[in-house]
C-alpha cells in the first residue's frame, strides 16, 4: 500500500511536467493491468477478476495509443469505434482512475482555478483539470451525446477547442418519433464520415453488424444474470460495480465484454443463495467511501445487488439496420426522458432483483440524478422498500464527511435489520 501511495504522490508532484506525468500515469495503468492479470485478488470471483483485467486493458489501449483513440462519454455509441478498431477513452473512467491515483483534488482545483464552476460534477471537473495541466493524451477526435446530463456538451466542447481536435455532439431527442430516429441516424452517419476522415480508414458496415450481434448476445447474458439476482448473489466489491460501466456501456460489443458476462452468468449459477440483506444502488456506487466499503465489499455484512445505471438498456438492437437500431437504443435509453420513463424501467429491474433496501448516493453536481431523489422516495415508499438518500461525492474525497455518511448508513442498515 505504501508503495502505491509514494507513486501517487510522485505523480502529483510532477503534474507541472505534463509529459512526465503522462508517462507515470500510463506506467501505473500498465503495471496495474499486469498485476491484476497475474496476481488478481483470489478472494473475488473469476468473472470479477476478469472484469478488472479487461477494464485495465480498455484504459491502457486508449492511453497507449492516442493516435487511435477518441474521447467519449458513457452514452456515446462506441459500436462505431469498435467496428473501426478505435479505442475510446470515456471521461468518467479517466477521472475515476485519477481518483484511484489520489490526484483528483489537485485536478479539480486546477479546473476551478481556470474559472469552471465548483458546483459542476467532479468527474467533469477532474477531466477538465487534467486538460488544464496538459496531462491528457491528445486523441484524434471527441464525440459526446446530449444525454444524459448537461455537462457533456460543454466539457467536450471546451477541451476539444483547447486540444484543437474535431468534436461531434449527438443530439438525442427525448421524445421518440420517426423524425427523431432519422435525426439521430443522420448524425451517426456524420460521425462515421468524420471518423473515416480522421483515422484515414474506410468504415465497414458489416463489421458494425457483427459488433451489434455481440452486443445483443451480451444483453441476453445480462438479462439471464439479472433473473438470478433475486435468489443468488455474487459477492462483489464496490469498484467492480463501477467497472461494470465499462462493460454495460462504452465497451459493449467487444468480445471481451461478452466473455465477461458469460463468466458472470456461470459464477452466479454456482453462487450461494442470498442470505444477507441485499442493497441496490440508484445512480452510482460510492466506491471510495470507507463506511460503504466496510459494509459492502465482498459481501462481508451486506450484498451489493447492482446499480441501475448498469441496466438502463438491456434490450435488443435491430441488426437489419444497425445504425437505425443504435439510434433507437439512444432515444430509448432509460434516462433520456422524464421520470415516468425512468421509474417505469427501474421499478421493473427492482421487481426482478428484489432488493431489501435501496440507496441513492446523491453525487455532487449531478442534477439529473439528485433531482430524482425525492421522486424515488415516493414510489419506493409505495412499494414498501426502505430507501436511503446520502449526499456526497463519488470522486472528490474532500467533499465527503465520513462521520455523517457513516451515521446515515448505519441507521439505515439498522432499519433493514429490524425488518
Amino acid at each position, binding site marked *: 500500500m505504501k508503495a502505491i501511495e509514494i507513486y501517487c504522490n510522485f505523480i502529483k508532484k510532477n503534474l507541472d511536467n505534463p509529459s512526465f506525468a503522462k508517462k507515470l500515469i500510463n506506467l501505473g495503468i500498465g503495471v496495474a493491468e499486469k498485476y491484476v492479470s497475474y496476481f488478481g485478488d483470489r478472494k473475488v470471483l473469476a468473472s470479477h477478476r476478469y472484469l478488472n483485467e479487461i477494464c485495465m486493458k480498455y484504459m491502457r489501449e486508449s492511453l497507449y495509443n492516442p493516435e487511435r483513440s477518441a474521447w467519449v462519454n458513457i452514452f456515446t455509441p462506441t459500436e462505431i469505434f469498435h467496428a473501426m478498431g478505435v479505442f475510446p477513452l470515456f471521461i468518467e473512467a479517466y477521472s475515476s482512475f485519477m481518483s484511484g491515483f489520489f490526484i483528483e483534488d489537485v485536478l479539480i482545483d486546477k479546473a476551478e482555478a481556470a474559472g469552471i464552476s465548483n458546483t459542476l460534477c467532479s468527474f467533469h471537473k477532474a477531466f477538465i483539470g487534467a486538460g488544464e495541466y496538459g496531462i491528457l493524451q491528445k486523441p484524434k477526435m471527441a464525440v459526446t451525446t446530449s444525454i444524459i446530463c448537461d455537462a457533456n*456538451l460543454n466539457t467536450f466542447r471546451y477541451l476539444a477547442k483547447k486540444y484543437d481536435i474535431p468534436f461531434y455532439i449527438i443530439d438525442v431527442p427525448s421524445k421518440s418519433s420517426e423524425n427523431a430516429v432519422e435525426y439521430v441516424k443522420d448524425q451517426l452517419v456524420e460521425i462515421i464520415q468524420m471518423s473515416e476522415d480522421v483515422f484515414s480508414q474506410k468504415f465497414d458496415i458489416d463489421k458494425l453488424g457483427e459488433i451489434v450481434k455481440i452486443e445483443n448476445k451480451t444483453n441476453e447474458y445480462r438479462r439471464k444474470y439479472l433473473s438470478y439476482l433475486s435468489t443468488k448473489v455474487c459477492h462483489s466489491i464496490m469498484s467492480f460495480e463501477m467497472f461494470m460501466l465499462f462493460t454495460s456501456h462504452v465497451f459493449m460489443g467487444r468480445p471481451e465484454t461478452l466473455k465477461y458476462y458469460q463468466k458472470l452468468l456461470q459464477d452466479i449459477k454456482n453462487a450461494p443463495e442470498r442470505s444477507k440483506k441485499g442493497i441496490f444502488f440508484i445512480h452510482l456506487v460510492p466506491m471510495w467511501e470507507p463506511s460503504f466499503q466496510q459494509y459492502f465489499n465482498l459481501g462481508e455484512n451486506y450484498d451489493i445487488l447492482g446499480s441501475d445505471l448498469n441496466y438502463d438498456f438491456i434490450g435488443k438492437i435491430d441488426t437489419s439496420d444497425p445504425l437505425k437500431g443504435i439510434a433507437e437504443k439512444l432515444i430509448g435509453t432509460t434516462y433520456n426522458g422524464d421520470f415516468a420513463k425512468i421509474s417505469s424501467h427501474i421499478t421493473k429491474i427492482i421487481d426482478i432483483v428484489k432488493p431489501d433496501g435501496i440507496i441513492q448516493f446523491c453525487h455532487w453536481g449531478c*442534477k*439529473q440524478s439528485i433531482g430524482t431523489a425525492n421522486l424515488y422516495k415516493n414510489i419506493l415508499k409505495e412499494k414498501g422498500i426502505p430507501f436511503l438518500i446520502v449526499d456526497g461525492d463519488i470522486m472528490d474525497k474532500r467533499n465527503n464527511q465520513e462521520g455523517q455518511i457513516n451515521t446515515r448508513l448505519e441507521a439505515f442498515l439498522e432499519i433493514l435489520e429490524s425488518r
Partner: protein
Amino acid sequence: MIGYVCKYAPAKVLEVFDKDAVRIDPKIRTDTAESLVHPNMCSFMKAVLEEVLENNIDELVLTNCCDSMRRLYDVLKGKLQFLYMLDLPVKVNNTSNKIFYDEICSLISAYERYSGKEFDMDKFTELLKNHKEKSLPDAELIAVFGARLRPDVIDNIQKRSNIKVQNLTCTATDKYIKLKNLEDQDPILHYAKTLLNSFPCMRMAEERPEFLKDIKIKGIIYNTIKFCDFYSYEYAALKNLDVPTLKIETDYTDTDSGQIKTRVDAFLESLGSRRITGVNKEGKYFAGVDSGSTSTNIVILDNNKNIVSYSIVPTGAMAIDSAKKAYEIALKRAGLEKEDIANVVSTGYGRVGIPFADKQVTEITCHGKGAFYFDKDIRTIIDIGGQDSKVIRLDNEGNVVDFVMNDKCSAGTGKFLEVMARTLEVPIDEMAEVITDSGENIKITSMCTVFAESEVISLIAQNKDKKDIIHALNKAVASKGVVLLDRVGRKGKYMMTGGVAKNKGVVSEIENKIEDKIRIPTEPQIIGALGAAILALGD
C-alpha cells in the same frame, strides 16, 4: 395565465391562447422548494418552483433545456392543470427544425384539448407581423453575459455606470429575433426556425462568439447561477480574451446583494465607467474609512500623502457606531478636529452607511491604491479579511485590472480561523505561528467552516497534536487563497493585506505554495482605509 421560462418557449403561440402569457421571473424565495427537491439543484429552478406554487400558476410550458428543468417538470407533474415539456433540439438543421415544429404543433393540440379553445392562425400571423424588432446599440457598452439576471438588477447596474449597460444574458437576447419576414408558407414553421436560430444559449451546439463581433464591448459582467454550470465554461474561455471581465455568481433571487454591488462597482471603477457623485471640499487633511465585517479602520493623510494617524477598532453590532468611534480615535491621535478634514471616502461592506463620508468606493479599488502607495512593484494583492477574501491584480500604474472574490461563505477567511481557534481552545495568536517542525501530516479535507469544525473535533478526540491540527488548518486556508490567486494568475510582486496577513503560519504556507515571497505591510489591516484616504485626497 400561462407561464413559461425559457427564451426558446413559443411565447407568441401561447399569447394567441392567452394574452397574459408571461415569462416567469421569480422574485420570492421560501423553503418550499427544498422540501420537494434536493437542495443542490439549480437555484433558478428552485425559485421557479416556489413562484409557481406560491402564486398558483396552474398552466406552465417548460423546455427540456437542462437537467434542472427536466426535473422541475417531474416535480410539478400532477400538481398543475396544464403542464407541457417541449423537446428542444440542441442542434440547428433541417431535421431539428422539423422536430421543433412538430413539438410546437403538439403543444398547440395539447392546449386546444385542455382548454377547449381553438388556435387562431390569423391572430398568430398578426402577432408575428407586429413583432417589434430591436437592434443592438452601436455605441461602446458594458455587456452583461451569461445566465439570466432580473431586469431590475440590470437597471441597477445601469444606474451605477456612465456608459450603456446591455443585457445579453440567456433570456434577454430574444428581443433581437427577427420575425416579420414570413419566408415559409407555414407561420408556425417560420416561427420554429426563427426561435431555434436565435442567438444560442450554452446548452446549444451552435457557436456563440460570433455574436460578440458586432458589439463594441468595453467590459463584460459575466453572471453564473449557483448549481447551473453551463456558463462557467464560457467564462473560463472568455477570461483569456483582452476584454476586462467580471464574474458574478448569484442564486438568482439575491442578485442585488451588497456583495454583488461591491464587485460591480469595483469593476466599473477599474474601467473608469463608474458614475460617481462626490464633492471635494477645501482643507488640509483627508480620511479613509474601511468599515469591514470584523474591524473598522481609519487612516488620515495630509495633503502630501503622509499618514498622520490611523485607528483600528472592532466592528460591533452597529457599524456606524464603530466608524464614529474609530474616527474620533484617529482624529485625537492626529490632534485634529472634524473640521480639519476636507474629504472622507468610505469603503468596505459598511461603506454606504457611514454618515460623515463624502463618497463611497469599493475596497477593491482602495486596496489597490493602498498597496501601490507602499510599494510600486506590487502586482498582486492577496487580501484575506474577516469574512471574505480576494485577489487583486494591479497594472504598473497601480490600477486594478482584474480581481476575484471568494463565495459568500466564510471558508478560508479570518472567521474560519477564529472558529477553529475557539474549537481548539487556543488564543488566535497561537494559530498564527509558523510551524516548521514536521509532526504528523494531517489534512483538513473540508473547507466549509461548519464541517471543518466537526472534523477538528474528531481530530481532538483522536488525541492529535494541536500543533499539527493548526498546521493543517493554516495549510487549508493557504490552499483556498492560492486557488483564488490562480483564477487571476500568478504575478509578483505580492502583497498580503487584511487581518489574516498577520497570521505568519498562513503567509508562510502560501509562500511555500507559490514559491515566492509576499510583502506584508507593517499594519496590513489599514491598507483599504489608506487607499480610501488617497482617493479622498483626489488621487
